[in-house]
């Protein structure tokens, strides 16, 4: 016979096993009775189990669950009887539902089905993005033609949080980046006696590439993530549904002000990053080569044309819109639970940086091949 649980004794009467339960059968102790009953279930010579609760103490849901499991485990051919139940224990057992059949596990999804699902999901997401872009342009046109208005003070507020609050970090990173480019440039160019060209190098790098790119990456981390988190939280909290139900366009109310602010903030921060980066390079050139600031600046102005400057600023507009649309689109696709907001935020950052680098590569290819 199995070893009875402490406080429990087992009496055999032919094919019948009588388990005398003593003490409490509650959350903290139920597993002992569970072990005893499981051992009895495994014995083929036991056809009937009688659980005698005459000397038992308290019984809670864990105790009832153990008895229910034993009933299931004994199956149809063997029986389980309960005796010695007082009124309270009787009531506790009456609450327990009838045992159910084992649940059917869902059929495993194949790899091909997962790929198919992913493709369909991506297609739906791209359609929703296209719809968001269209709707944003439509609402922006309504605002521009004064057929609709933006929430009072919203654009100004976003310009401050997205732009003014980012000035220090963008400025610092650009200054350090300009210095780094100059350090590397001075070392390499000096090998060919061409150290004076460090101004050309820093100017072109900051204006055409690093100014827009550095600003976009900082904006993605600060602003894109914030947009996704804010809109995702609003979606989960049904605030976006509330706007729709009120007949207020969520795109006009939430997306257009953020995109408008980003349209100003992106290029403005980029412009600042370009010049602060050049200043960083200027400092290194002065310290390393003894080059005067005026000479350095003449090299920058002589080398960087208006078209270079236009390309840098043009890219900053595109990067700002990528950040804004990625954040808004993924935030508004958050569904149901808190984790989806975290997922939306992470994806907004990853997708934005990926798209920014791809677009930058396309810009570089076209302008280089086109000789611009």
């Amino acid at each position, binding site marked *: 016979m199995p070893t009875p649980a402490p406080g429990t004794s087992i009496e055999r009467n032919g094919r019948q096993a009588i388990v005398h339960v003593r003490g409490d059968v*509650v*959350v*903290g102790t*139920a*597993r002992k009775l*569970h072990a005893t009953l499981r051992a009895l279930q495994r014995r083929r010579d036991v056809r009937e189990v009688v659980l005698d609760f005459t000397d038992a103490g308290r019984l*809670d*849901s*864990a105790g*009832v*669950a*153990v008895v*229910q*499991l034993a009933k299931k485990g004994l199956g149809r051919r063997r029986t389980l009887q309960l005796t010695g139940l007082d009124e*309270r224990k009787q*009531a*506790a057992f*009456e*609450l*327990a*539902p009838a045992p*159910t059949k084992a649940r059917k596990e869902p059929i495993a999804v194949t790899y091909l089905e997962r790929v198919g699902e992913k493709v369909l999901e991506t297609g739906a997401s791209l359609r929703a993005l296209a719809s968001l872009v269209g709707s944003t342009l439509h609402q922006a046109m309504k605002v521009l033609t004064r057929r609709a208005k933006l929430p009072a003070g919203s654009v100004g507020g976003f310009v401050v949080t997205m732009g003014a609050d980012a000035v220090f970090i963008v400025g610092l990173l650009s200054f350090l980046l300009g210095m780094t480019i100059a350090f590397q440039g001075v070392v390499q160019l000096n090998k060919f006696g061409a150290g004076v060209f460090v101004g050309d190098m820093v100017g072109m790098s900051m204006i055409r590439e690093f100014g827009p790119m550095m600003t976009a990456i900082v904006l993605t981390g600060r602003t894109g993530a914030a947009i996704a988190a804010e809109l995702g939280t609003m979606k*989960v909290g049904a605030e976006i549904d509330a706007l729709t139900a009120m007949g207020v366009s969520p795109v006009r109310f939430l997306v257009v002000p953020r995109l408008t602010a980003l349209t100003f903030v992106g290029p403005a921060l980029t412009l600042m990053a370009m010049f602060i980066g050049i200043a960083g390079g200027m400092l290194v050139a002065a310290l390393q080569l003894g080059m005067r600031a005026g000479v350095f600046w003449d090299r920058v102005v002589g080398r960087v044309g208006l078209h270079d400057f236009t390309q840098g600023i043009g890219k900053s507009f595109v990067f700002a819109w990528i950040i804004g649309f990625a954040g808004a689109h993924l935030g508004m696709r958050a*569904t*149901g*639970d*808190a*984790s*989806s907001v975290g997922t939306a935020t992470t994806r907004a950052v990853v997708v934005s940086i990926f798209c920014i680098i791809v677009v930058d590569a396309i810009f570089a290819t076209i302008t280089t091949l086109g000789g611009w």
Partner: protein
Amino acid sequence: MTAPLATKGVSVGYDKPILENIDLEVKQGEILTLLGGSGSGKSTFLRTLAGLTPPLAGEVFLFGESLYELPPEQRAPLLQRIGFAFQQDALFTSMSIEDNIALPLRELTKLPESIVCEMVRMRLALVGLEGLGRRMPSQLSGGQRKRAALARASILDPELIFADEPTAGLDPVVAAGIDETLVKFRDALGMSVIVVSHELESIRATTDRAVMFAKGGIVAAGTLDELEQSHEQAVFEFFHARSA
């Protein structure tokens, strides 16, 4: 036998007291309803009783121990003997209903998974959510979420359950189901239940004893019959102005 819950001179509020000098005792196996108008401090008082908001003054005795005098590590085992069903259900939205209900069992006990699953199945059946355990909270109606919250609050068979407006905003049929569940908690599982409610039908279906809060304190206490006979204005308005 020590009362599961008692208060002595408790004042609750935020900047200044909403309720002052409250003495109250909850008996084993009774359903006590806290009544009062909006802003009368019922929910704040309930949170104080459950260890969530410290009182401005006075003491809360939970199972004979002065709750707020205890250090956190000694308070936790006491709090594991109570359950709290919040007004806003407070289910974890990233977990299925089953996982929400099983969470206290998995975190606080060493029960094997087979017993945990059986207990969750039984509790789902008890609150009328059989077959819905794999759904996410967002896939349930408001009434179903409240029932899931009650299931989670009661899964450890606590000696004391707090329920803040468990039937607010629900249709009468769903509300009656929740009332029935609270009565089962008392009758079959021997729990004491403290409910904050405005719903007269629910109050009549469940309450053993009620306490009416108004004017910063308790203005009436007793069985529903006793309260309905009261001439205290707040009590009279609560029972009779609504029925009119």
